[in-house]
């Protein structure tokens, strides 16, 4: 059989005087901009991103604090009076020490946690960790899912059998059980893999764990999509013309799978934020001295009665970010997959 390169196929019928249709990225952007929900949620997400990126500026120049150092003996000035950050009870039996509440000013705007640290400054730094972990683990999940899904769906046969069963096995584990198990193994001690040495506080560990546990949830639909595309007319035509397998993969399969992956991205990021928070809340995610919204939520748990803002602040941050991501992801899916939008 003669191999025919698509480079030598006849030129496009679109000629002079006929304007070329918009590319997929332009159509995507236009679709997003035409949706007020996408615009507002996008602006919201950008504002959150800017805020967390400015965390060092806030800590150094507004809060004047190091949010990773205990401030159990610290004092601040409130309404002209110097008061301790950790306030000892003077009533009744004199039991208990309560961190200072929200001052609504630069220092200790949202109050202090059980270590006397500025909650607002930690919220911003914690947001950096939470968003970084969520985004990076999303990229990892999508990359691994694309490789596995495409390999299984396109190759078929034994490779598909092995990979599909592997996906099924991973799917059989409840996500949090799998994540906690991996965390306990990886966070237990310094993790050494060849020249790479990861301490228990490294953010790469939660990124890897969260990135791995959601792979089956993306790989399976990707595999299905690949199998559909593989048998579509344009791919069959390309094969009939003798186009090489890897070229079909790169030119026809991957671009069509990409839209599926893009639709998954914001939803998965939202899910990863919640997963990271849950793991950190259970002490098996982000480890001190790093902070994340989940660890701050955990710090706030022991102050629910006396200083609820410590738990409320990260809770609200998680809720708002996840909501914005889901709203944005919803519009993104409608734009990239109009069929499903019509069907709803």
């Amino acid at each position, binding site marked *: 059989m003669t191999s025919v390169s698509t480079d030598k196929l006849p030129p496009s019928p679109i000629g002079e005087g006929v304007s070329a249709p918009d590319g997929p990225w332009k159509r995507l952007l236009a679709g997003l901009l035409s949706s007020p929900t996408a615009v507002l949620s996008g602006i919201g997400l950008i504002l959150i991103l800017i805020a967390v990126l400015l965390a060092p500026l806030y800590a150094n120049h507004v809060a004047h604090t190091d949010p990773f*150092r205990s401030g159990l003996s610290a004092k601040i000035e409130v309404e002209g009076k110097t008061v301790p950050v950790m306030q000892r009870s003077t009533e009744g039996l004199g039991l208990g020490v309560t961190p200072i509440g929200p001052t609504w000013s630069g220092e200790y705007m949202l109050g202090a946690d059980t270590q006397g640290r500025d909650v607002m400054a930690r919220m911003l730094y914690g947001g950096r960790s939470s968003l970084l972990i969520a985004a990076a683990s999303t990229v990892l999940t999508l990359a691994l899912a694309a490789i596995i899904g495409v390999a299984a769906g396109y190759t078929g046969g034994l490779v598909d059998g092995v990979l599909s069963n592997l996906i099924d096995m991973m799917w059989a584990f409840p996500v949090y059980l799998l994540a906690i198990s991996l965390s306990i193994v990886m966070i237990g001690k310094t993790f050494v893999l060849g020249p790479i040495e990861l301490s228990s506080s490294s953010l790469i560990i939660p990124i890897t764990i969260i990135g791995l546990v959601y792979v089956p949830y993306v790989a399976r639909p990707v595999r299905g999509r690949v199998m559909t595309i593989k048998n579509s007319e344009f791919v069959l035509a390309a094969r009939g013309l003798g186009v090489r397998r890897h070229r079909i993969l790169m030119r026809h399969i991957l671009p069509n799978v990409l839209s599926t992956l893009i639709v998954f991205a914001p939803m998965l990021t939202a899910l990863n934020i919640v997963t990271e928070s849950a793991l950190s809340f259970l002490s098996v995610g982000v480890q001190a001295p790093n902070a994340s919204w989940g660890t701050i939520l955990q710090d706030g748990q022991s102050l629910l*009665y*006396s200083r609820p803002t410590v738990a409320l602040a990260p809770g609200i941050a998680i809720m708002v970010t996840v909501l914005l991501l889901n709203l944005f992801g919803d519009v993104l899916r409608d734009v990239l997959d109009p069929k499903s939008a019509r069907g709803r």
Partner: protein
Amino acid sequence: MDLMAISKTGRRGSALARLAITAAMIPAVVPALAQAQDAHRGGTMHLMAVASGGTLDPQINYTAQFWQLYSATYDGLVAFKKADGPESNTVVPDLAAEMPTVSADGKTYTFTLRKGVKFSNGDDVTTEDVVASLRRIFKVSSPTSGSFYNGIVGAEDCLSSPADCTLEGGVIADGTANTVTINLVAADPEFLFKLSAPHASILPKGTASKDMGNTPIPGTGTYMFTSYDANNSLTMERNPHFVEWSVDAQPEGYADTIEYKFGGTEESAVNAVMNGQADWSFDPLPADRLAELSTNATDQLHVHAQSAWWYAPMNVNISPFNDVRARQALNYAVDRNALVSVFGGPALAQPVCQILPPDFPGHEDSCIYTQDPGDTWSAPDMDKARALVAESGTKGEKVNVVTEDNAASRGVGTYLQSVLSDLGYDATVQTVSGDIQFTYIQNTNNNVQISVTQWYMDYPAASNFLNVLFGCGSFHPGSDSSINIAGFCDEEIDARMKAAMTLGATDPEAANAEWAKIDNAVMEKAPAVPLFTPRRLDLLSERVGNFEYSSLFNWLIAKSWVQ
């Protein structure tokens, strides 16, 4: 209460008149008092805990939670006095009719067994039960078999081959004379303390030589366990065969039934007690409820000193703490007052810089790691600490602090991580489940550099802190049961500890003076950072009366009433 009221009334008269009035009133008051106490008998006491204490076997369980219950369910030949305050450190005869006769060389103890005492299954307590119970300590590999009871003749064979343990020559019963003789390899002035621990409880001779888990073993105490589900609840009822033989050793309980529920959270337990749905909770009260309870429930709160310490053992065998200067630096740097804040403030914790707790035998105030060395800790000395770190050349090294996953331990660990970072180390905190942290930090294979842990006394003797926690004999590399967590073994200090224990048999005061010096000697080598001595805080429901506190068993449940 009535007697106190009378004596207060009589304070206006002469001493003689007061005496005469009091003497005249006693015959009338005593029956009235007994009647009042009888009126308190009955009812059900409701206790709560987040989790159970594990196995119900009194010769295996080593938790404060269940030792508290064993004080009312099991007896040894001798027992710690069930009394309030320091008196509770006194050893009194329990199943033994009187204190044992001890040979001149201190190696032989002869006990005469009390007659007429029955197990909760109706069987009489015999000398055979005593022998079988002491053998069972080794057969079930009780956690203290190698530390408390290894001095009994024959114990060495029992430790190497538990299943065949006979303690031949070590424990001899004479059924006719109703005596049991225990022979020791060497004099042990602390032996009666050790026999008073629940691990030396006397159980029926037919008790299986295995961990009985959730199955209650018949005992001789005022209560007996009737049901136990480690995930749900524990029930104790009156022992139908119990007749009070010694109010000091085993007083009769007031409540008819004690129900212990497991599950929920510390917060929900506080709410339950405040709402009268429960009478008490074992777990520490949540820190953010303390201020509220401190003002709203003053009559229901009881604060007591504990013979305990929170400390941070540093592994002296791995970097950076294999350099004494690095260990001393951390001792200088830690702000004990700050840590007291983590634990609920000065009403609940006292800063310390020694191993032996305040008011403990052998304790003498001394603090070398403070800004102005003297009797007590005053402030951290960061300059000195940084200089020591620089001298040691360990700056920049990685240090991981291992804590339990509860708020207090995590708080202390986070604080230590912050201080270590201030000193120039690359410090992290690792939180490990409370179920395994204590064994995890003991095993040298885990390479734990520094951890946060606590030690509560088993009996009131300095060796129970110094020798147990820092003696060479307590260090077992590669074992989960190596209570010398720091891996500290100084042969000279170890020899001094052995000499002090021997001296205690003949001259307890001189021995305690020596223990004070040993305490300082160990602290000069700084294998640990003493943090604070905790105080126990108990919240009881409004209906609970007659709270009494024992140093070893905490609240004496049997001595309180609920109606």
